[in-house]
């Protein structure tokens, strides 16, 4: 048993930290205030090779493991949660389905462009009436000759309008639930694909979120990912891994909140009540960190990790929210002023309890697994 990071993981973390603190963090307040895409941060991340962390070297990526990916997102989120989720969604649910389920030709065609950052990836599963109950989605894909014709509306799509390709889930078969769903690689410039409403959010304001509208979008058969009817498997596997990334994002926000609260306390006369609050925050973050790393380690080792990933997502994101609230409390008036990192962390953290499977869905996943396997 060795619960410390290996030297190569420590070195990778340090290299991400340099970009995160040097380039990403100074933009964070402005990105939040102006609701703008952190273009410079994403470009810097691409130049540093952070858009292809999980993509093998053969396809132009860095060929690192899930633990390295978690560290990458954790470090980025410590600087700017918006930048972190843009890169997280791109890397996990936006690219990994092609890596895991794509044919050789699909991998050669798309992965190098995703790894370099030329294309930003996105994931289009959720619909207005299919959130936690993803298997009830309604978007359709009808086979016409050598193409599928896609119709439907997707919502809450991260990287909307910025993505170069969307992994879209639509119904190909007669089955009304999971077995009728297929996955497609849909380039953003496909005719009939357009951005619908853009959402204004309470947090993660630099990360664009909105509707993806598909009106008779023709997608070549070559862009079908995995077999017809296997789309739901693709989505669930992508989300399992995605949950590890979100755990990393939560850890980053939580650690930033702890560090900033500690800095505030260091300037004030010591009060035991404040000290104890900080201790409880820091202790929770430590417990959450290991849960995330454990899930990532299992994933890297090719072992089952669905339950650990759900536990990590649940505990890390609940911790981020609680810690963000407590950090603001310790900061007092300074924390509540718009533009302070404390109020931003609080707004950013809330999204994490909701997306990538709400924490109620995580509890459902964990309980189902417990009742089945003990």
């Amino acid at each position: 048993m060795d619960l410390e990071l290996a030297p190569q993981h420590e070195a990778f973390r340090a290299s991400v930290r340099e970009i995160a603190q040097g380039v990403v963090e100074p933009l964070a307040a402005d990105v939040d205030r102006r609701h703008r895409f952190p273009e410079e941060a994403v470009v810097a991340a691409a130049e540093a090779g952070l858009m292809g962390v999980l993509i093998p070297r053969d396809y132009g990526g860095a060929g690192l493991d899930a633990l390295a990916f978690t560290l990458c997102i954790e470090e980025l989120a410590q600087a700017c949660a918006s930048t972190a989720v843009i890169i997280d969604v791109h890397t996990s649910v936006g690219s990994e389905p092609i890596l895991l389920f794509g044919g050789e030709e699909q991998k050669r065609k798309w992965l190098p462009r995703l790894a370099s950052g030329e294309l930003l990836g996105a994931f289009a599963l959720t619909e207005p009436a299919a959130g936690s109950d993803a298997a009830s989605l309604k978007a359709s894909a009808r086979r016409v000759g050598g193409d599928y014709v896609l119709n439907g509306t997707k919502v809450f799509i991260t990287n909307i309008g910025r993505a170069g390709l969307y992994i879209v889930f639509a119904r190909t078969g007669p089955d009304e639930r999971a077995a009728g769903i297929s996955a497609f690689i849909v380039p953003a410039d496909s005719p009939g694909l357009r951005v619908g409403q853009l959402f204004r959010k309470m947090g993660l304001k630099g990360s664009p979120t909105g509707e993806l509208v598909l009106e008779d979008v023709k997608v070549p058969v070559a862009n079908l990912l995995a077999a017809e009817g296997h789309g739901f498997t693709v989505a669930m596997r992508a989300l399992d891994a995605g949950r590890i990334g979100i755990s990393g994002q939560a850890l980053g926000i939580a650690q930033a909140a702890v560090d900033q609260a500690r800095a505030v306390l260091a300037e004030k006369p010591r009060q035991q009540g404040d000290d104890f609050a900080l201790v409880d925050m820091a202790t929770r973050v430590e417990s959450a960190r290991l849960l995330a790393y454990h899930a990532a380690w299992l994933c890297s080792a090719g072992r089952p990790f669905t339950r650990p990933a759900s536990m990590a997502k649940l505990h890390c994101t609940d911790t981020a929210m609680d810690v963000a609230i407590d950090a603001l409390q310790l900061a007092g008036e300074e924390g509540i002023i718009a533009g302070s990192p404390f109020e931003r962390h609080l707004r950013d953290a809330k999204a994490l309890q909701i997306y990538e499977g709400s924490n109620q869905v995580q509890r459902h996943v964990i309980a189902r697994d417990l009742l089945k396997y003990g």
Partner: protein
Amino acid sequence: MDFELSEEQVAIRDTIRELVQDKVAPRAAEIDEKAEYPKDIEELFAHNGILGIPFPEEYGGISGSSVTICMGIEEIAKACATSSLILAVQALGSYPILVAGSEEQKKRLCPPLASGEKVAAYALSETGSGSDAAALKTRAKRHGDEYVLNGTKQFITHGSIADTLVVFAQTDPEADHRGISAFVLEREKSPWQATKLEHKLGIRGSPTAQIVFEDVKVPLANRLGEEGAGFKIALAVLDRSRPGIGAQALGIAEGAFDYALNYAKERNQFGQAIANFQGIQFMLADMATQIEASRNLVFRAATKVDAKSPDLTKIAAMAKLFASDMAMRVTTDCVQILGGYGYISDYPVERMMRDAKITQIYEGTNQIQRVVIARSLLR
């Protein structure tokens, strides 16, 4: 990173698991009810080498690894917290010798502890010095080649049954905590009296004694480290023993959780198993998640003991704090899941809830853990 136990550790764990299932679990309710020290379980552990886990091979033991100790305590505590203290306190009472003893002292004192022929205990607390351990009053005066001890120790786990007792006493009261020294008392040479056994909420089979020293003579050869080094030794020992209490809390929580999970699957109300209700499912999911989070922290602290990491103090305190608070919440929720049956002693979860409480108090209260952690965070 590697989250796996070694093959050797897995083999030790499986042995313990089997013994616990066959011999310890069936005794747990009776041990609690009668509040009697389970000498039979101590002998069982001694015969099977379990009491040798805290010691390296060169001192007659089988491991010496904190990870292995924590794993052992966790496994035993799943069934019986009292029995888990037999291993935990053997480790606690031996750490001072392993941490600060000379080679001669280790070679002489450890083998009978490792074999289980002798039982160890640790005497730091006094009536007037609990969390403020540095305020202890027990006096050790040197006369030639021996020390003479006078004073009273409070809340000494296994103090009445131990053969070997590590005692912290003032050799130079003027020097405050720098005047504290550590001694190993061997009962046959330096007999002490257990004057009172406490009646307790939990860990009822584990004797908690008040101990009185009246002109007890201890040979110079049994002083650990230099005069005045005692407080430092006590703190170093607590860094090593706290992950073990975290492991105990973890085991208690797991024992209660496993019981509640099975109960929820079998208990029918409103025509179906209560495990079908989402309210119960979410409680189970939260408990399992908190248990997993605690396990990682406990074993991280244990690996830091083994690696002698500089940030051991902070992580060990975090592990003890987080795991014991978790155990209290989880066992309370397990009682809740069993409802009325959870509240009665026909079912084990109320005992586990009572046992969990002490893990928030001993080996440094959780308030003291927070002080320790705050000191390292805000340094």
